[in-house]
């Protein structure tokens, strides 16, 4: 084991140590008075993790006399090397902020003030509200008479920041209550990543990890401002650049990312598919693809059935009334044995390769340039530089974030990057992949734990009323292949689902009662329970009360006027947070008389990160433990304790009083008290009886060594199969590992397999079986991820431990897709098997140059009196608005606006615009302007900058402006939510809102009221 500062700490046992520092020289001389008295000398030093972006930077928290006196980066953390961006650097101020919530606060209906209450008073009432609402509105059957066992008037929102352990107890509680309106921040940030990446490769996560970006030869940052929103990404991009890699930034505005990239290419927001479609055409025509990879590892040679067609923007199978496709029209053609037919010669007109060629033949430079506003020269500059990685010895990585997800074509934006990477053979290799920069530090983990209505923990679809028994459900969701070379890992799904049910219901889950399957609430098929619909139903009076933890929807959801009014209609709401924000205090927002707001608010003060322990999973799936450094401030509590107490109090009420369908609550195997360590063990899972697996014996109560040992016979539990193997009898809690040891081969690519633990099974580079040829030899021996040596794989944990494809027992490399191949043609998404360009819901164009179909035909359009859209090319609103984050604030800004040094650096709402637009509008830099859409208006300071340029689109000039979304009214003189302007339009697959493009106009403000 390498000796690090942290290994010393580990040896002391508690993850902390007194600091004893060697002095530099003995004689301090005249500066003695100024150099002595280092404030952290003798301080307790504790490892924690920054609570902002998904880099998950580890921090050192220095504590004296029980108080935090300093927080700085952990030099042993491989991703940051001890650095922190502005947000992380301000963590001390945030932890000790006088603005922190430190006491439970109660706001009575119609009241104009908060009242301090004790925890017991609050929790008693919270439990009562939940039980009464549930009993009143519990729905045992749906309109079709199917058993559903759910409650629709309750909701749970948020919690993407909680630890994995808190997420696990929360999910269990929410399902026990029967809540289906259950959604968290991934919905509005990265929900498209899961279905897009999973459709391509089988899993929905970032394929590689932060350090791995250093191995790239070309880095395409598109739909992301990585240097600002995930700052550590750029450390590794710069390392690659120093090696000679080219960094390209394709984005509507020139940002801090563009500043250090090799070049920046401005693109009109909402036209990424046109841009990348042009790249596909370029790759195919110029034969830039990695031919062996495409033939052997992708589904390029698969034959698609005769029912598939594409005409003038529409795929076959569309039902115009339902605005839905019948996806069976896109099925692969199978032979008599049920195997997919293939044509390795690529001659068959219906092989995927030829259908793809035909589809993207329309994406010629002229048309792409005309739609995107990117010059042909710039298009070619990117195409040439990036497609040069379509060789075995070159790696290209694509880095994206919300610039791709937050569109009505969010999933297909990402899907298309998957097509590019498959063609270039860039998946599975070091320096390759699609690096989805997830949002909050644990939005990856809390998505894995599925704090989202559509999944159970571990990416199992939430059952719908269609599947009344466990068998029916498992049959529907367990894929089958007839190809013996395909691993089809999801064939193991029954083991994971049964182990989950066993973990939820303990001894009450038996084979005879379907392991409690009937206690899991069932959704109605085809009904959307996500954010936009939750707020629409709330606005229309259909939702009465709920829980909202660490989320600020009254600031961060589009068309916010509507959301704020919807929130007013709640009878009661329980909110857990660290600071006041626009949601906690919605009842006293500007322009509203609190007397008119009937909502009863229970505001529960939460601890901040360094006041609790547990794990988070960063974007690279690193599962890392953070330690509690100090006691909670004031009376604040960690959310795990809150969830567990709420559940247990509700359970006690049911035990005493009975009520509607109490079984899911009373039969739960649920902890009496929250303990992160114990919960981490429950997540991993146990054997429920003595069993023998192979020649290994496991005793009842022992930890399961990894998910390959999970069973569907009730002999194992696991709250999340993905994390099974992360806490073992042999090695303990692997998320605490701090070992920086690497073999020379691993060190060459910066794998760090001994630092913390990564799901699945500590695999650091997903799909790494595709980094080697059919004989197990790395395509690029200089940057080996895995290699078959002496009859075994060495390097990273292989993605499927089977022998290489050419050998006896060899398997295809993409073990998570049904047919073992990555999918260029993806028949499973709502809006088509190939990504196609459609204009945003609000567009400055009147014609889509690619087809007669203007918008995504399946996009979710919320219908209400206040959900209005500008016409295509609306002359009243000729300017495109895009919205974004910046380094100094995080998401809605509800935390970071409370950090004095951050607010000092970025104090107020602004709108970035080109000098040309400013001139047209008679504005100068620093003027306050009104930015207005059909839905609302907002004040902002004009930032007139050459970093924004007008676009030439379809022969005319189109202006674009950009605004951050982090400023809100609860911090005076900051400005207010940009979302007063944005649209309630959703992607058809995940209903992520289209924050990134809408139409506005702007003018100089006559009077300034918000800034």
């Amino acid at each position, binding site marked *: 084991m390498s000796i690090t500062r942290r290994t010393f700490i580990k040896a002391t046992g508690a993850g902390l140590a007194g600091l004893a520092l060697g*002095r*530099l020289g003995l004689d301090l001389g005249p500066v003695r008075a100024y150099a002595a008295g280092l404030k952290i000398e003798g301080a307790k030093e504790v490892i924690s993790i920054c609570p902002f972006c998904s880099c998950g930077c580890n921090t050192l928290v220095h504590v004296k006399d029980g108080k935090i006196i300093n927080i700085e980066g952990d030099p042993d953390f491989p991703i940051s*090397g001890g*650095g922190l*961006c502005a947000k992380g650097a301000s963590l001390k101020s945030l932890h000790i902020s006088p603005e922190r919530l430190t006491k439970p606060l109660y706001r009575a209906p119609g009241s104009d003030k908060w009242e301090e209450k004790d925890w017991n008073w609050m929790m008693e009432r919270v439990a009562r509200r939940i039980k009464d609402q549930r009993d009143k509105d519990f729905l045992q059957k749906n309109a079709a008479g199917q058993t559903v066992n759910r409650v629709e008037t309750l909701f749970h929102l948020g919690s993407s920041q909680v630890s994995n352990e808190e997420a696990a107890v929360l999910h269990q509680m929410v399902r026990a209550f029967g809540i289906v309106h259950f959604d968290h921040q991934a919905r509005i940030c990265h929900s498209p990543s899961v279905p897009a990446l999973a459709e391509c490769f089988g899993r929905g996560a970032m394929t590689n990890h932060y350090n791995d970006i250093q191995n790239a030869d070309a880095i395409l940052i598109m739909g992301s401002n990585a240097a600002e929103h995930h700052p550590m990404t750029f*450390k590794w991009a710069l390392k690659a650049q120093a090696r000679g890699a080219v960094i390209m930034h394709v984005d509507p505005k020139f940002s801090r990312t563009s500043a250090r990239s090799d070049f920046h290419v401005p693109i009109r927001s909402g036209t990424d598919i046109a841009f990348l479609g042009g790249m596909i055409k370029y790759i195919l025509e110029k034969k830039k693809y990695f031919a062996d990879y495409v033939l052997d590892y992708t589904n390029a040679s698969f034959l698609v059935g005769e029912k598939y067609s594409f005409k003038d923007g529409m795929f076959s199978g569309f039902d115009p009334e339902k605005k839905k496709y019948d996806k069976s029209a896109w099925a692969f053609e199978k032979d008599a044995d049920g195997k997919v037919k293939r044509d390795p010669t690529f001659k068959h007109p219906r092989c995927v390769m030829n259908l793809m060629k035909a589809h993207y033949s329309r994406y010629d430079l002229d048309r792409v340039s005309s739609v995107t506003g990117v010059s042909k020269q710039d298009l070619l500059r990117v195409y040439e530089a990036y497609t040069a990685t379509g060789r075995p010895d070159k790696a290209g990585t694509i880095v994206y974030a919300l610039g791709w997800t937050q569109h009505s074509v969010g999933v297909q934006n990402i899907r298309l990057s998957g097509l590019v990477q498959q063609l270039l053979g860039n998946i599975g290799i070091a320096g390759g992949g699609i690096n989805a920069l997830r949002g909050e530090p644990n939005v990856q983990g809390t998505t894995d734990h599925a704090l989202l209505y559509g999944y159970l923990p571990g990416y199992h679809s939430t059952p719908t009323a269609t599947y009344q028994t466990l068998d029916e459900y498992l049959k529907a969701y367990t894929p089958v292949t007839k190809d013996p070379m395909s691993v089809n890992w999801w064939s193991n799904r029954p083991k994971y689902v049964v182990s989950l049910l066993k973990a939820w219901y303990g001894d009450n889950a038996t084979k005879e009662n379907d392991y409690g399957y009937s206690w899991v609430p069932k959704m109605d098929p085809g009904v959307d329970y996500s954010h936009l619909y939750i707020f629409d139903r709330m606005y229309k009076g259909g939702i009465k009360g709920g829980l909202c933890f660490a989320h600020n929807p009254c600031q961060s959801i589009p068309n916010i006027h509507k959301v704020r009014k919807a929130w007013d209609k709640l009878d009661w709401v329980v909110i857990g947070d660290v600071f006041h924000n626009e949601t906690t205090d919605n009842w006293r927002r500007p322009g509203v008389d609190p007397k008119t707001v009937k909502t009863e608010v229970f505001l529960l003060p939460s601890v901040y990160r360094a006041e609790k322990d547990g794990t988070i999973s960063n974007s690279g799936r690193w599962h890392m433990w953070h330690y509690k450094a100090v006691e909670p401030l004031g009376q604040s509590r960690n959310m795990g304790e809150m969830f567990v107490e709420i559940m247990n109090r509700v359970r006690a009420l049911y035990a005493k009083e009975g009520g509607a369908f109490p079984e899911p609550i009373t039969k739960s195997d649920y902890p009496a008290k929250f303990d992160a360590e114990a919960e981490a063990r429950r997540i991993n899972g146990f054997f429920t009886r003595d069993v023998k697996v192979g020649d290994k014996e496991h005793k009842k109560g022992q930890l399961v060594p990894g998910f390959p040992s999970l069973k569907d016979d009730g002999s194992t539990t696991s709250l999340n199969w993905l994390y099974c193997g992360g806490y073992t009898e042999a090695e303990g809690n692997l998320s605490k590992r701090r070992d920086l040891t690497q073999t020379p081969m691993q060190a060459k690519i910066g794998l760090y397999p001994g630092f913390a633990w990564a799901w699945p099974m500590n695999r650091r580079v997903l799909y790494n079986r595709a980094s080697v040829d059919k004989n197990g030899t790395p395509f690029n021996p200089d940057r080996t991820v895995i290699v078959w040596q002496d009859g075994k794989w060495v390097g990273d944990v292989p993605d499927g431990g089977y022998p290489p494809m050419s050998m006896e027992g060899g398997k295809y490399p993409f073990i998570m897709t049904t047919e073992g191949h990555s999918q260029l043609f993806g028949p499973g998404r709502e809006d088509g098997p190939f990504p196609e360009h459609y204009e945003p819901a609000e567009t400055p164009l009147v014609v889509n140059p690619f087809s007669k179909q203007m918008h995504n035909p399946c996009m979710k359009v919320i219908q209400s009196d206040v959900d209005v859209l500008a016409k295509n090319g609306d002359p009243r609103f000729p300017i495109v608005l895009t919205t974004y984050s910046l380094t100094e604030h995080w998401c809605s800004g509800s935390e970071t606006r409370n950090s004095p040094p951050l607010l000092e650096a970025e*104090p107020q709402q602004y709108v970035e615009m080109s000098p040309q637009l400013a001139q047209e509008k008679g504005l100068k830099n620093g003027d306050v302007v009104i930015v207005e859409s059909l839905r609302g208006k907002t004040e902002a300071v004009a930032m007139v900058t050459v*970093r924004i340029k007008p676009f030439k689109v379809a022969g005319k000039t189109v202006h674009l402006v950009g605004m951050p979304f982090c400023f809100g009214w609860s911090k005076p003189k900051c400005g207010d939510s940009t979302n007063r302007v944005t649209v309630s339009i959703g992607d058809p697959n995940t209903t992520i809102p289209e924050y990134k493009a809408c139409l506005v106009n702007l003018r100089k403000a006559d009077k300034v009221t918000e800034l």
Partner: protein
Amino acid sequence: MPKAFFIDTTKCTACRGCQVGCKEWKNLPAVPTKQTGTHQNPPDLNPFNLKLVRFSEHMDKNGVVSWYFFPDQCRHCLEAPCKQASSVEGSILHDEATGAVIYTEKTAQEDFEVIHGACPYDIPRLNPATKQIVKCDMCIDRVRANLLPMCVKSCAMGAMNFGERADMLKMAADRLASVRKRFPKAQLCNPDDVAVIFLVADEPKKYHAFAVAEGPQLLTRKQVLAGLASPLRRAARTLRG
């Protein structure tokens, strides 16, 4: 052995970890700011912001945009003009072990205009409450305890570096040679005179009016006093606007 900083602006992404890290370590209060049409905030160094990332954007005649970031701070001059201009014993110290130039509480007795005027980099600021003159102290408390200055510790990009002067000079020279292939105008700012060596990719003035000192570095106290009205400083002030 004297220490030095090497600040490679070609790696700076203006994440402002240094600006905030400095304030946090030193418990400096925030100053009220407004958005005025730039990301640079506070607008300038002040008694509570001893480290400030300066932003400057440019567009060339071909429409190519550059955005330069300059994490400004005291240069800890090898022969500090401010110290030479000092008239109060013990108000400005030059720590031999580290090379840090340290302002003490006795600066309250100095003529601020003289000290400020002596600085070719426009660094010293007057705390109106204490009357003390303040600036970066190289985190002398940390450095003497073998820790990196907080701004350097915060920098993840590798833009801020700190170490033995000889090592930093070598790092700077190597990096300059490598960067020149992409940026022919790249240069080091007054490397022979200061302990805080900036590498810029373009003309220093495009980063900050006071990025480099244009005059001779070694001034006598008399010259410094005379220099208050010198054309050089006037020129620099004009540039700053």
